[in-house]
């Protein structure tokens, strides 16, 4: 689904509808600073994470989503979707981005949450 993105003052960008993303799947938002992966869990929670695995930069959006985690497609590190942190004993993180869902519309802020250098 191709969506025109619309801004408001708070930096929220409308990126599409929940159903544009398959359950236990992800879609990518392309920005000039790199891709952001937007995930949908089995119970329709939405998370946005930099699409770059802390291990060797694999595209997390292409991984298998389970619970609130995604398994990187390249070497199977698991990343927590809510914090962006790698599941122990692996170490590292991918920046998370604020998302807001109003009705069925997803809004994303392209300003990352602080705390993770891998933005």
């Amino acid at each position: 689904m191709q969506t025109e993105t619309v801004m408001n003052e708070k930096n929220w960008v409308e990126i599409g509808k929940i159903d544009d993303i398959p359950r236990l799947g992800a879609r990518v938002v392309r920005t000039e600073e790199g891709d952001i992966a937007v995930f949908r869990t089995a119970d329709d929670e939405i998370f946005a994470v930099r699409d770059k695995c802390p291990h060797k930069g694999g595209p997390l959006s292409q991984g298998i989503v389970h619970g609130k985690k995604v398994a990187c497609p390249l070497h199977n590190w698991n990343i927590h979707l809510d914090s962006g942190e790698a599941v122990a004993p692996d170490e590292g993180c991918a920046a998370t981005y604020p998302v807001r869902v109003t009705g069925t519309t997803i809004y994303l802020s392209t300003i990352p949450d602080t705390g993770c250098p891998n933005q």
Partner: protein
Amino acid sequence: MAEKLVVIGNGMAGIRTIEELLKIDPQAFDITVFGAEPYGNYNRIMLSPVLTGEKSFTDIVTHDEQWYVDNAVTLYKGISVTEIDRVKRRVIAADGTTADYDRLLIATGSNPFVIPMPGHNLPGVVTFRDMHDVDSMIDAANKYKNAVVIGGGLLGLEAANGLMQQGMNVTVVHIMDTLMERQLDKVAANMLRSSLEERGLNFMMGAQTDAILGKERVENVRFADGTEIAADLVVMAVGIRPNMELALKSGIHCERGIVVSDTMQTFDPRIYAVGECVQHRGITYGLVAPLFEMAKVCANHLARYGIGRYVGSVTSTKLKVTGIDLFSAGDFTGNDQTEELIFQDASSGVYRKLVVQDNKIQGAVMYGDTIDGSWYFDLLRDGTDISDMRKNILFGQAHLGDSGHGENNRVAAMADSAEICGCNGVCKGDIVKAVVDKKLFTLEDVRAHTKASSSCGSCTGLVEALLAHTVGGDFSTAPHLKPLCGCTEHTHDEVRAAIVKQELKSVRDVMTFLEWKTPDGCSKCRPALNYYVVCAWPKEGMDDYQSRFINERVHANIQKDGTYSVIPRMWGGGTTPQELRAIADVAEEYNVKTVHVTGGQRIGLYGLKKEQLPAIWKKLNAAGMVSGHAYGKALRTVKTCVGKEWCRFGTQDSTQLGVEMEKLSWGSWTPHKFKMAASGCPRNCAEATIKDLGVVCVDSGYELHVGGNGGVKVRATDYLCNVKTEEEVLEYVAAFMQLYRKEAHYLERTAPWLERVGLTYVKEQIVENETNRKQLAAEFRESQQYMQDDPWAERAQGTDKHEFEPIAMVMVGNQAVPA
């Protein structure tokens, strides 16, 4: 409020159960532990290296006191429980402490048996069971000279070796004629004895001790024949007895141990018991591997998962004396129904014996070179029919051909800098350090912490050997029935059976019916479940794309930089100018960085963006090309040579045959990838004898070969049979593939599958039983009706569009753009 769990016995089995429980349900119980010993928990089997001085006590502590604090477990250390009040559901300890329980776990281990001969109470007479014993032995070694160890079993020999390392003059007294008679046959036992003698131990065999003599402390040991030897220290290592006193006193049913059911419950269902104190199906155990299996089952029941049964274990043993390689498993004595296969090379000190009944291994004894011990043990536990390996089995599982390790296979001799895992660059030193520092026990732990053997797996055997070597004993022995993954207790076979029997037709249905422990499984089980569903229900089963690995979801192979490769099918390795032109056009138009002739006789285009894929596929489709499934656990290629059509030696049209084989089988999903080849004559230019299924054409027809592998571990095929016509070849291909599809575990290639089930079994199913072969072939063809739609064509026409396009594009400064 959480229920109360009280554990009696702060040892290996008890704490392992708590660990398993905390893993699956940390909130289920308020946990209280009573331990008679004054510490946290330590690895009892490592007392031997502590005694030799190779390790210190802190090295072997597995759970320090902080661990109990961190996990909110109340520990009463140094306090024995003396009474269980089953009516009030409360335990009472020696110092008066009490604790109420909703569930009670008894894990009191066992007591060393002390022969009640005169003098057994004298100072200087010790057993070998706990840290306190080790302290007394080291203390004695510092002050005295002569030690006598009574008992030539595993523990006795480890004690004797340790005391010798501590500088004592040690004599082992054994009542039998050979050492370790419960684990070794005579030959191996004698080899062991002579190498221990070379190291300086003294032995008195067939000697019966009569009394221990001394005034203040031991001075002499006297034998039945009246002779005496000097002794300043006597170690009694003549056996262990399950510690069931407390249970008996509390009216819990005991025989030789505390009697438990398959769910580890005693006759009082609120009371569980695990470890050496129990008797399960008439058997008591004295090694850790079974205890860990018990712990897992027990934790599952405590957490009310209600699944998992303990059904007993076959055990194997190693002696932890540095420099001595010895392995034994199962029943090695045999009887009149059994045969023995023996390999003996006295000059290099190698001995191997397998006890075989009806072509199945019942027991194994190895001395000198034990690298294949775990392989024999697997064959034993799997009940594999070894008829076809008999001639070579004693030479071991040819470690030749394990790629990535040169000739290294003896971990003990390796330098710390030796690379063990070639994929992730992990050296021996890294693994040893992680195992020691992080107290790792299992292969899974080592994989998680070091990444060793977590990629291609070719070094798994080395990592296991290294783990066993570092941790000692049987720690690494994988449980027999391995759950599919951490999300379930069920094995691959159980899951497959349930899918068929209960008619489970989606991944969700399977997880619900089998009570998966995690909400959506994980990246290991979901693809497996999806395959099992699709295989069992080709027509109605729901193929869940979100459970497929990315490559199979987008029908292209992901590359290190997130781009994809495109490899169209070239039937039987043949192509045409038209196809080549189409490939060339696509490569130019899309600026393809690399065009590569693959190892599978076709052409790969690399470095494409996901968005470009459908358009490229459309163009290739237009030239008549379809997906090559180079990305899938599926039929890959059928490699051929030019055969009779051109080659002066060709006996049949191998090229056309290969095309037919590929037309028959393309599109099928398989447990792991599946490769075939057809060669026109025994010169075998298509390398048919390292394929999952290979055909070698001969003048009289076709030779069929199965179970080859050219990758991580080279394995030549086994010969299956000869057939006369092409139709028969195709029938066998269909039948073999279907058998493999239905029975192998996900991610198990034909080579390991065949070694697990045995060639004889496959022959029975396919060669000898014609009806069955035809039935399997028909099933395969039926299933293929639903598989042979080109996934590329579907997607070029718009299927799964969301997979290939971003959801949105956002410009810097947050200017909106259409995606």
